[in-house]
């Protein structure tokens, strides 16, 4: 899992630029992070990880800021802190966030692995970095692919003939 390093205070308008919002997620995905990391949208591979500075996801409630990263195949975002609204949105659309106080130690391009339930990620050289625990119901949600698949489970059976 290749690491894409990003600075502090990455905001929702950088993740999902306002001028792209009316055109749908595929268009937004092509412009994701163009203002801070122009090589990201074209270069990111399925399973890659973003490692960012503090306050990742500050700004608007647009959940496209999280779903665009799911669309691009990002496996997780690791940062010392997240904006609260972005945090909720990410789990709701099936994007795993790992709050890691020592995220700054990880280098751009490094290969890392993580275990979300154990609250731990492992650097290329084997160094383990602890992550804040995530409530079980949020891990269940992200593993289900977000809130929508869970709602499907909840509402679909009511549609079936008994």
């Amino acid at each position, binding site marked *: 899992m290749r690491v894409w390093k990003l600075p502090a*205070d990455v*905001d929702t*308008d*950088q993740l999902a*630029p*306002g*001028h792209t*919002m*009316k*055109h749908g997620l595929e268009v937004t995905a092509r412009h994701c992070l163009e*203002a801070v990391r122009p090589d990201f949208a074209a270069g990111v591979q399925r399973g890659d990880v973003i490692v960012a500075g*503090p*306050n990742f996801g*500050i*700004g*608007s*409630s*647009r*959940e496209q800021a*999280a779903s665009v990263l799911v669309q691009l195949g990002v496996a997780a975002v690791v940062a010392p*802190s997240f*904006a*609260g*609204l972005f*945090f*909720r*949105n990410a789990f*709701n*659309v099936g994007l795993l966030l790992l709050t890691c106080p020592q995220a700054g130690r990880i280098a751009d391009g490094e290969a890392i692995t993580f275990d979300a339930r154990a609250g731990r990620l492992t650097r290329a050289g084997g160094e383990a970095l602890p992550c804040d625990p995530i*409530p079980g*119901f949020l891990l269940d949600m992200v593993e289900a692919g*977000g*809130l*929508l698949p869970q*709602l*499907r489970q909840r*509402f*679909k059976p*009511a*549609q079936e003939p008994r």
Partner: protein
Amino acid sequence: MPSPATLAQKLIARAAGRAQVTPGEIVTCRVDLAMFHDSSGPRRLQPRLAELGAQIWDRDKVVLVIDHYVPEADEESRRIVKIARDWAAEQALPHVYDSMGICHVVVPQHGHIRPGMFCVGGDSHSPTGGAFGAYMFGIGATEMLGVVVTGEIWLQVPQTIFMRWSGRLADGVSAKDMMLAMLARHGMNGGRYQAVEFCGEAVAALPMAERMTLANMSAELGAQTGLVAPDDTTRAWLAAAGAADVDTTPWHSDEDAPGVRHAYDGSTLAPQVALPHSPANVRAVDDLEPTRIDIAYIGACTGAKLDDLRAAARVLAGYRIAPGVQLLVAPASLKDAAAAEREGILRHLTEAGATLLPSACGACAGYGAAIREGATVISSTARNFKGRMGSATAQVFLGSPYTVAASALQGRIADAREILS
């Protein structure tokens, strides 16, 4: 005896059907009001509701405001707004405000938000409702779908961060300056997604519109909500908005309630300006390098309510703006625009050289008439992220409506106190 509790705890306990709640615990709350707009609402909800075969849990508790893509500037905007209108008709939604102004202003102006309520909004500036002593916060479209089909939402009970403002603000200094000063001290995520409560003499003296500005920009502080305990000012404003006789007595923090406390002196506060490209990149206006401007923008839920327009008109009445400067004014709602018209404020603004724009989100979020490339802008809006207003090369400064008006007059970022005195 229940232990001392904050306003936030009391509001959440009520919505969770509990006697009391403790910061840190996760609870499920019943939602009293769900607000969404044309950008976050129907175009995302409609196909998913259809897919789930689910119904809106309570139509009377849903409010739709069409404010982001109006007036429709292009085909895509027309398509999005049409989805919202068609869906509202199909669902027979009882509360729809179409092209009447910005949701955070229109919804309270029609009496939908009252002290004690627990509300969610499909927009990050939803904490604005906290100005009325309601617990209100922003959520994304998927989570709104969950609320719309269940009427419930989970919440981690927040700590409360008390921002106590002593003293009285000087003439020409406003709630926007208070908020920029708090952002300067605490930073954009300083609210840590906890509840902020604004209190003290300077807050109690603020009219509702100014309290709304504080609560609104709690989003920039990174708080989940921003509260002001309701009082006589709240009651009088709500009565005029059609919500008479609200009971405010239960809705205040106990004196010894737990929380983090910060103190500010309102009487010494100078006008504040946020420099590009962050609302927390703040200086006092007097400490700024001389900064020429091309565009002065008075708009948005944050900075174009009736009181904001009054502030601008006090500065501009009887003067002309500087040559080469464009002053754009987009009143936050039709109600505010109509009141400003009656008071003669709009005439003062247009005679000074202002161009009036529709009451919608507009340039604040890069919708509609965007700011041109390379422009230097002073704006009464909430955010100046790079590219936010539709141009990646624009330099956007944030200030109060007083500061924006004074800057339009002088052609550079200016201190309104010099003009008012």
